[in-house]
């Protein structure tokens, strides 16, 4: 499903973000990615949708080596992988609904049928009553939930969440986790980078821990600390 083989990534400024990382995530798995700030979690996520390329090693997504695909094939990959970005990446000029619709419009998939998906996604993150607000009119948590709605609207088979609860209170964080669990139960593979100790400790799912760009722990039913 998602396989990294001996992946190393050095940014142009010389930072070694990932160092010989190998891991395998099966279809329909739910995996937490933990590790201190700067460990390389976001970098790992960016490799999966070919937002960046490794300096060495291979990254397989659904049996395709995405480090080897051509430019023309990148959109196909990205339509299979929904990403919740740590910094949301919302468009300030668009309303919540328009931000979510934007995903479908960008691929020419927006129509009467898929506009229902938008309503459903907004309902799932409990933002239906904020649909016409613009990002600057939203709280941090509401912005984060907009980003979640945008990532799930296309119903991708792979959902990658980069710190999706970073700005949420206790109750909303748990709502978000429930949502991801539900999406996972519906058949999606979910990879979630997080610093939320309580959630990881309570959920007891598979935990992959990285530190200084290396995998230091890969444990089924693990907690936040080893």
């Amino acid at each position, binding site marked *: 499903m998602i396989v990294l083989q001996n992946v190393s990534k050095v940014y142009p400024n010389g930072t070694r973000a990932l160092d010989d990382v190998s891991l395998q995530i099966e279809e329909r798995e739910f995996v937490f990615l933990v590790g201190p700030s700067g460990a390389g979690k976001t970098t790992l996520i960016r490799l999966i*949708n070919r*937002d960046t390329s490794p300096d060495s090693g291979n990254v397989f997504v659904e049996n395709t080596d995405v480090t080897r695909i051509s*430019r*023309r094939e*990148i*959109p*196909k*990959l*990205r*339509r299979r992988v929904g*990403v919740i970005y740590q910094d949301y*990446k919302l*468009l*300030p000029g668009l309303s919540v609904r328009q931000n979510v619709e*934007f*995903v479908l*419009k*960008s*691929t*020419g*998939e*927006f*129509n009467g049928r898929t506009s229902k998906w938008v309503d459903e996604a907004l309902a799932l993150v409990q933002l239906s009553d904020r649909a016409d607000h613009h990002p600057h009119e939203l709280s941090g948590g509401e912005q984060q939930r907009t980003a979640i709605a*945008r990532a799930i609207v*296309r119903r991708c088979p792979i959902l990658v969440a980069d710190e999706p609860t970073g700005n949420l209170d206790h109750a909303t964080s748990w709502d978000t986790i429930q949502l991801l669990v539900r999406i996972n139960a519906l058949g999606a593979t979910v990879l979630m980078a997080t610093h939320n100790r309580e959630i990881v400790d309570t959920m007891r799912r598979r935990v992959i821990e990285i530190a200084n760009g290396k995998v230091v722990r890969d444990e089924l039913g693990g907690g936040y600390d080893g």
Partner: protein
Amino acid sequence: MTAKLNVLRYVLGAAMLGLWRNRTMTLGAVVTTAVMLVTLAAFLAINDTLNEMVTALGRKSNLIAYVRDDARPSRVTEIMQDLEQRPGVGEVVFVTKEDALRIFQERFFDQRDVIDILQANPLPASVELRMDDPAVLPALADELRGMTGVFESVAVPLDVVERLVSISNVSRAAGTAMIVALTAVALFVIANTIRIAVYARRQEIEIMKLVGATDWFVRGPFIIEGAFIGLVGATLAAVALVVMYLQVAPTITRLISFLPIATDVSFVRNLAVFIVLVGLVVGSIGSYVSVRRYLAV
């Protein structure tokens, strides 16, 4: 199918929105393109007129080669047949001594019989050339002058033709240089407009790419914007051209009716169509260059 229509609608909508958001730049680019194209049209009209003049004057100014009285007629016929095959030569006519005398008589001595006075016909026969392309006249004249056994002398009204040909050449060179410069300016302005449009939408573009938009879906609106600028500029230029034609052509034709200035309807229509096409192409190329350069998709 509906997906394709969706894409088309999106691309067109985004293009129009982009043009509107960026309307000051858009207007500037449209005006620049229009100015460039009006100049192009003016140059083409002038050039066409000059060419017509050269041709027309060339037609009137025959080359006349006077045949020696002792030249063999078969040799003259041979030369005439050869001349007819030459490029640029329109018509080759033989004027006999009798014809020459008759023409002379008609012109100067309408009433009297010159032969009676002169006892014999002193006028030579001649070979007259009507040219399609007067530019080849000088070389041809030199060649015939070399045939001293056949021709007494060769007369060419060279000066006017040569001067016109050289004016036409200068005008063509100057016009071409101007068109190249103006096209470069129009390309630059359009490319720059699109660059700014790309910059204004860089956030949108980043997200579109991250959620799986194809390269052409991202590029499309920008290319359409450039093509649209070119098209509108060209339409303005074409309208200006037609207005100028309607206003100015009758006056010019009246003032210098002896010159074959290109003012006929079909010429103006073709020119207008050509200009619109040039505008479209320049707009598309300008935006494509910018998109390739600044969009990295």
